[in-house]
């Protein structure tokens, strides 16, 4: 049992690698669902770096998701740029926006910060709708090509599945590394007591902005992956509701644990697949699930899993 606990990630990797040829049956639909799951894992984990570690509330994370998606979409569909370069350009722009607004906005606290990030999200969405000549406006941006690197095109669903999940592993792995690094520990220190952190000579504002930039770059990466998979972008997918959904994943899975938000994303994105015949109930159900989690299990799904694990290990050690 203990051995299983230590090597769970090998089992997980094998499952991800073997899913399409076995259970997924190479079907476009099944790999498509898991591509969305992967994209949302990246979004949830990136927000966890900002909220769970640096302790900065954001109700506008979809702003950077939007920037990534639209930079990739516009550069490849309209100007024929290489998808890799477009992806990097999206991350650069997202990072630059986060860096530019980060210092003044992150100086705000609690509700003010929530309001300002929400406003940032609305600004990006209204700009996308308004700048019709560039973004296609409310009717959307068409004909985003498949992702490709020189010499290879990911135009097949299964290929794209592997690309997305490779990125998921990269983002989750690097986020865990960041969380354990001195940088991550400094963020936790700022989160638990900013005044105390300042007394130790930590430049809190600079650390918060760095966390914001990193988080924005990851969200932008998710946006680029989304754009090339969908082939079509509409502003509706990037509104405050999307930001709120990411927030829900964080609290559902267990904020501040990296794995928890990833689990929350998996849960929330897979749930509709099992309840599609009750589509009208989805909104109510999401609300109720989240209420139950907040009231009865504040550590989220991941907290429950680690609780079970600890209990099992305590028994096997005896």
């Amino acid at each position, binding site marked *: 049992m203990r051995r299983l606990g230590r090597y769970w990630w090998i089992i997980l990797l094998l499952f991800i690698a073997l899913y399409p040829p076995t259970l997924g049956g190479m079907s476009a639909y099944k790999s498509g669902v898991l591509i969305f799951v992967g994209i949302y894992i990246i979004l949830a984990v990136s927000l966890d770096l900002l*909220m769970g570690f640096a302790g900065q*509330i954001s*109700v506008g994370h979809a702003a950077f998701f939007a920037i990534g998606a639209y930079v990739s979409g516009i550069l490849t569909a309209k100007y024929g740029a290489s998808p890799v370069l477009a992806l990097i350009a999206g991350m650069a722009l997202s990072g630059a926006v986060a860096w530019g*607004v980060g210092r*003044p*906005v992150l*100086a*705000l606290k*609690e*509700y*003010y910060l*929530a*309001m*300002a990030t*929400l*406003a*940032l999200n*609305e*600004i990006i969405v*209204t*700009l996308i*709708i*308004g700048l*019709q000549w560039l973004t296609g406006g409310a009717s959307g941006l068409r004909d985003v090509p498949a992702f490709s690197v020189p010499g290879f095109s990911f135009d097949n669903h299964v290929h794209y599945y592997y690309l997305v999940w490779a990125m998921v592993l990269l983002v989750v792995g690097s986020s865990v590394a960041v969380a354990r690094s001195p940088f991550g520990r400094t963020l936790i220190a700022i989160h638990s007591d900013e005044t105390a952190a300042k007394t130790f000579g930590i430049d809190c504002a600079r650390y918060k902005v760095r966390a914001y930039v990193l988080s924005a770059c990851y969200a932008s990466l998710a946006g680029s992956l989304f754009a090339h998979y969908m082939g079509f972008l509409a502003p509706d997918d990037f509104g*405050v*509701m999307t930001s*709120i959904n990411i*927030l*829900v994943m964080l*609290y559902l899975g267990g*904020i501040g644990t990296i794995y928890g938000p990833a689990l929350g994303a998996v849960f929330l994105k897979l749930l509709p697949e099992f309840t599609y015949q009750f589509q*009208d*109930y*989805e*909104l*109510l*159900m*999401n*609300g*109720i699930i*989240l*209420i139950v989690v*907040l*009231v009865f299990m*504040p550590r989220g799904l991941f907290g429950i899993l680690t609780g079970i694990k600890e209990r099992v290990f305590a028994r096997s050690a005896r």
Partner: protein
Amino acid sequence: MNEFSTLVQFFFSGLTSGSVYALIAVSLVIVYKVSLLICFAQGEFFVIGALTMVTLTSKGLPMPLAFACSVLISAAVGALVERFLIRPIRDASVGSLIVMTIAISLALRGLALLIWGKESKILPPFSAGKPIGVFGATLQPQVLWIIGITILVLLVIWLFFEKTTMGVAMRACAENRLGASLMGISTEKAAFLSWAWGSGIGALAGMAVAPLLFMQYSSGVMPMVKGFIAMSVGGLASIVGAVVAGYLLGVVEAYTIGLISSQFSDTIVFTLLIIVLIFKPSGLFGATRSREV
């Protein structure tokens, strides 16, 4: 229509949306002052109030009775939400509380979807009558109703918080929770009542504009966001500030749409919000903070 009457017309549309923003901002402020919580579900009460009234009037209930019932039903829903969903996690972090009110808004919106379906509904005007001409601009009679209701609500709030024992007790909680509880005031009861007031007023805003606006289960998001803006600009905890900021926002927005750009009006409004939050976090009327309801 000449230049001047166009400007008057924009002013009227600014007053209309301004009333809605002012009412929602006031409902947010009342909840915030007494229970130190910003409710992201306030837009849902806006929708529930309006749609309940649509249903009741279509069932043949006379307008005034339907009006009163809808306000009371919405207020009861708000109070129950506070009692059974907010109170159990009263001491959680601000982040959890924000997410809790978001969860409540998802659940209420989902409930509205199940009850009223996806189609948009509109209410008949409160009184029949032709549009009134003022300086060449036209004024819908419903706009007078909206402004009248807003004034009446503000008057009732003032009377309640200034003249009744219960209202004074709630103000005491807003001022100093510990002190109030030492004087034998139940802060829990005050929070309960503040939610009833907040959701009732939010519902009133929705009902007042329901004859001008098509409403559906998801119509509450934008009015709520605009209410937040008015609340922040007004200084978060000031009812007077919220009202002034609500009307200011409505008028500024109407002139931005009319004179500058209809496409970018929201971009401009939200940019202004961020600027106000950064440079004047106590709100534009922060100086009047010591003297408020």
